[in-house]
């Protein structure tokens, strides 16, 4: 084999598999070899499912020989460890779930398997997806492939780093407040956070149920569109999955940006953001304009309140969701005194610092006497944030902004200051609260050669527009082709 198969995009790999240039086994083995060589440096995977991957690849090769075809047939992907996988340990990056093996697949994962996807392994995450750096993982911190002294972002930092370092062709993540978009930006890859309700949450171990969404990573916009197209659609097992048709994303992805209206929200260019980030994002917007898009300055006046709103709603929902970890049906058990003591000891020892902090914050916000002042207030402000976007989308087709205020920060830099860490999600939280879709894609590098991400936000259920604009931008630029030296 003369070319390194791990350099191929999903689209390219599919073409090679289809034409018989290489087999699914060869493709999978290339990734497994690279994982063996580099995962100890990048620490993207919590567990690598080598045996299962090779078995799946063999079955795929047989199916290809029998004439089967499909968008993701034989494509090796990394799966974030908050998504349930039958018989494969699923820990959510938490000690409390060490050894837990789900008896079912998450719907998003099942649909990928049905389409012939090969799972390479489960990727690291901040514990229960709570964090922006993977430093809150109960196991270890994933390294940014561009600078291994820096964080990959989070919470889906394992999948982002795996795709960036070519330890997978693409990957799944989850996004509650920015957890696929922010790590994609910090690792220089593409990620889509679909609208809430676009992809089933069944089997996604819940963090904040009104915000959680399953997203996709890839090295190109087309690749994330392909993964989304397979995962998306109604699922009777999730009452919050929307029963609406899923468009054929590939049919419209090449239509260009001519005549599209791109909104630039003034509230997303703030004091204190890294100058290189602002410069790169402004240049990307100018690029869209040069390609025929119409640029309009817009205002999303309640943007500054998104952080506070999110840090009431998400912890409140988390405190309720994580009550299920009571050591009775699954997970860690630390037996003490009576059953009450066992609950408290298990949870005190099993959860890490950030998870406990959010359970505490959420419990407080929901407790007697404080519900109206905190939780209800936040839900009302959430309405205002959602209305900001609804008004904006009367004037524009898509909104462009930075993904994060800075490029990747150093490991440990923000670990002791929760508020500083929360601020790294300041540009991704509003879309999550509004339930709309967002795309993160590379748009430049700073003076330390760290990637910068452009965020495109679209109206509810209009992932097709994001993919179209993102693809057009990608065709005109080369940022996505740069790769970290490892």
């Amino acid at each position, binding site marked *: 084999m003369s070319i390194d198969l791990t350099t191929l995009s999903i689209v390219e790999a599919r073409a090679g598999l289809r034409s018989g240039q290489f087999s699914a086994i060869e493709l999978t083995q290339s990734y497994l070899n690279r994982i063996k060589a580099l995962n100890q440096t990048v620490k993207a995977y919590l567990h690598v499912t080598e045996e299962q991957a090779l078995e799946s690849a063999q079955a795929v090769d047989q199916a290809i020989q029998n004439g089967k075809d499909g968008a993701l047939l034989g494509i090796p992907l990394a799966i974030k460890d908050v998504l349930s996988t039958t018989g494969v340990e699923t820990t959510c990056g938490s000690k409390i779930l060490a050894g837990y093996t789900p008896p079912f697949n998450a719907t998003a994962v099942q649909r990928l398997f049905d389409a012939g996807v090969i799972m390479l392994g489960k990727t690291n995450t901040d514990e229960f997806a709570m964090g922006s750096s993977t430093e809150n993982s109960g196991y270890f911190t994933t390294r940014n492939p561009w600078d291994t002294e820096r964080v990959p972002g989070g919470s889906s930092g394992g999948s982002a780093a795996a795709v960036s370092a070519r330890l997978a062709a693409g990957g799944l993540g989850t996004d509650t407040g920015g957890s696929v978009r922010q790590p994609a930006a910090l690792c220089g890859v593409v990620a889509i956070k679909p609208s809430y309700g676009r992809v089933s949450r069944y089997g996604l171990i819940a963090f904040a149920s009104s915000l959680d969404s399953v997203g996709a990573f890839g090295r190109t916009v087309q690749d994330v569109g392909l993964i989304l197209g397979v995962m998306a659609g109604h699922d009777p097992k999730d009452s919050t999955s929307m029963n609406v048709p899923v468009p054929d994303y590939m049919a419209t992805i090449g239509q260009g940006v001519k005549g599209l209206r791109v909104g630039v929200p003034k509230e997303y260019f703030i004091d204190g953001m890294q100058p290189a980030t602002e410069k790169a994002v402004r240049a990307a917007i100018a690029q869209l304009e040069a390609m025929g898009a119409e640029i309009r300055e817009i205002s999303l006046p*309640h943007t500054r309140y998104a952080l506070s709103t999110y840090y009431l709603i998400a912890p409140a929902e988390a405190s309720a969701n994580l009550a299920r970890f009571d050591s009775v049906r699954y997970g860690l058990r630390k037996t003490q005194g009576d*059953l009450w003591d066992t609950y408290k000891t298990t949870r005190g020892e099993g959860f890490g610092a950030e998870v*406990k902090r959010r359970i505490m914050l959420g419990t407080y916000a929901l407790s007697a006497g404080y519900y109206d002042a905190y939780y209800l*207030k936040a839900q*009302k402000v959430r309405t205002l944030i959602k209305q900001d976007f609804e008004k904006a989308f009367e004037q524009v087709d898509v909104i462009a902004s930075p993904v994060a205020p800075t490029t990747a920060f150093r490991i440990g830099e923000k670990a002791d200051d929760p508020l500083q860490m929360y601020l790294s999600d300041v540009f991704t939280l509003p879309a999550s609260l509004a339930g709309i879709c967002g795309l993160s894609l590379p748009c430049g590098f700073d003076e330390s050669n760290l990637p910068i991400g452009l965020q495109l936000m679209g109206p509810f259920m209009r992932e097709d527009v994001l993919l179209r604009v993102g693809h057009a931008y990608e065709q005109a630029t080369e940022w996505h082709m740069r790769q970290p030296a490892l």
Partner: protein
Amino acid sequence: MSLSRAEVEHIAELAKLNLTEAELDQYAVQLSAILDYIAELNALNTDDIPPTASVLPLKNVLAADEVTFGLEQKAALANAPDAEAGQFRVQAIFE
């Protein structure tokens, strides 16, 4: 907004979390700082704004009234820290 040590202990009790002395001290400081920040929401008048619990335009999603099979007992118990006679086993609750 400053949370007292006693309030933090009370929240931990509600949340069923055993916290160490150091954690109680740390959370009192950190949660107070977060609540101070969050207090900015009070600057907004939201008297006439309805709350958003879900962004979806859905109401009363119902499933068909059909008998389907759930998890089998063995699979349901497979991850239990302790099980006996097809049931989850915990410490005695009644003397």
